[in-house]
């Protein structure tokens, strides 16, 4: 192998610390949300960057070319995460954006990402995904993309080495620490645990926005069947979305510590005692007020 192709699938997710939830319409106002790189996918990119470094150091200088391609599917603004990935050290980016791709569930997302990979990097060696994105949290796209590409896969990878056409992996799966090996090409998913992402250098970020190899592909460019409309083709349908926290009573207490604690117990001693399995009722002492 004189050339190695690494691919990282990156999703842009809403920066949800300020979740723009509209309780009236009961929808998430996505257009209000600022985007960020999905944390798990960022760890996946970091894993790719680290493995490239290790391999480059191992190889006789200049003999191996290791290329990292980042791919995202989403609205046009998702391009930001590709630029950020380039600033972190990826070589090129592919933006998949098309109204026909909107509303894809994991099954269709994996088909689209798969079609793109077959188109732009048919000779790929290893695909990296995050173990689960922070918005939908399904963790399904990675394993399903492996099916689409018909390659072996391992999720929750914490350590990996590439050697002579195969990859060796360590992962923790349901209390089992497993050492696995699979032939390339293959796919791994990376949890946001072990590959802590480097900081993006500001200068690099600026550079990647000015130059940087990013190309945009439409549905037709990746040979998606012309009658495939993601929203229609997706087998799952969301029928209702609600916010469990929005339905909480959210009782507000304020004032001096002693006072609020007394009030807390007056109103919730059963709940607190019930959870603790202790009787917190005051028997012979006088209940304040």
């Amino acid at each position: 192998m004189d050339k190695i192709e690494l691919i990282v699938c990156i999703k842009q997710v809403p920066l949800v610390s300020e979740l723009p939830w509209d309780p009236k319409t009961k929808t998430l106002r996505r257009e209000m949300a600022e985007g960020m790189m999905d944390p798990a996918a960022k760890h996946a990119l970091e894993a790719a960057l680290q493995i490239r470094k290790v391999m480059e150091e191992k190889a006789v200088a200049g003999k191996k070319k290791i290329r990292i391609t980042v791919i995202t599917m989403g609205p046009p603004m998702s391009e930001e995460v590709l630029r950020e990935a380039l600033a972190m050290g990826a070589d090129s980016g592919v933006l998949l954006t098309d109204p026909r791709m909107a509303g894809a569930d994991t099954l269709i997302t994996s088909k689209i990402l798969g079609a793109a990979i077959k188109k732009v990097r048919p000779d790929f060696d290893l695909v990296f995904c995050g173990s689960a994105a922070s918005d939908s949290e399904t963790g399904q796209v990675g394993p399903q993309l492996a099916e689409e590409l018909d390659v072996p896969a391992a999720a929750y990878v914490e350590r990996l080495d590439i050697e002579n056409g195969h990859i060796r992996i360590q992962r923790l799966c349901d209390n089992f620490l497993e050492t696995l090996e699979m032939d390339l090409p293959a796919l791994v998913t990376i949890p946001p645990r072990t590959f802590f992402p480097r900081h993006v250098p500001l200068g690099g970020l600026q550079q990647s926005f000015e130059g940087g190899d990013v190309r945009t592909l439409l549905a037709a460019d990746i040979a998606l069947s012309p009658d495939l409309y993601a929203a229609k083709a997706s087998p799952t349908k969301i029928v209702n979305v609600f916010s469990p926290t929005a339905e909480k009573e959210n009782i507000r207490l304020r004032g001096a510590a002693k006072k609020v604690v007394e009030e807390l117990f007056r109103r919730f001693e059963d709940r607190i005692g019930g959870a603790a399995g202790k009787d917190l009722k005051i028997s012979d002492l006088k209940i304040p007020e």
Partner: protein
Amino acid sequence: MADKRNEIWVFGDYRNYFQNRVTLQLLARANAIAPAIDGLVCAVVLGHDVGEYVWEYGAHGADRIYVTDHPDLKTYSGDLYTHLMVKLAEEKRPEIILIGATDFGREFGPRVAKRLETGLTADCVGLEINRDGLLVQTAPGFGGNLLAEIVTPKARPQMATVRPGIFQEIPHDDDRKAEVIEIPLPPDIPRDRVRLLRCEYRPGRDQCLEDARVVICGGRGMGSKSKFKKLFELARLLNGEVGATRPVIYSRWADHEALVGQAGRQVKPRLLFSFGISGAIQHTAAVTDAEFIIAVNKNPHATMMKMADVAIAADANQVCTALIKELKRRLKSS
């Protein structure tokens, strides 16, 4: 098929049997929804020497059990299990397939769904049948800040992975007998493309925090290591466990074991106290299953305060001290 009832399949995930009861919980839920769709509850068991699990699933509510028992299935294998499950599903055409959201289930389920070209809802916390006879799957997103109800109107089977600990298992009943159908290992099974070189059992990082009925979480707002220490006293008085946010771990006020969040542990207590925590998504993602949340923060607008049942706008350390005092008084009085 022997009868035309709609089969509801539960994947028999028996690894870590004593900690992981999710298969039994799913059998119970399958029994609860079965009448609405004239359903037959079936378990699918793949492995070697799995007789005792077959017995157990029967005693916990399976009407029918498909078993493939073969030495080649001695260890869990994503590749082989996917192949076998897909083949069996193509033949028997179940209406629904439920899989426990264990690490294995969350890797295996998507692959089965992909090959069957059907929908899969991840990590469900609710399963109902609606008026149209469809499985309504409730799944969390955005770290539990949103719940979505999802259906699969046309594609079959309807598939879900389901979070452990949501449903209550049916008590063991030896008089229940399931019909056991043995499925021989097909001759054409593919080679496993993933080679398992080593597999060590790591008997759980202890699950104290995960299982605690009371969790006391502290954040940067506790102010210092010595103030943070008071949370341990509070926890002792309430039979609880102490959790922490990442800045607390970085400042070494608590061990890494205590980290609650995306990068740490997931908690689901009946009562959660949250002291001096802003409520970043990486933290809240892991606490939204708490039944009742009491948050203390001097900033009333902090996200954590918005998601609390009781939000106390005050100094975290002072409230903690007052709580300890009041608890001691009450515990002495009873």
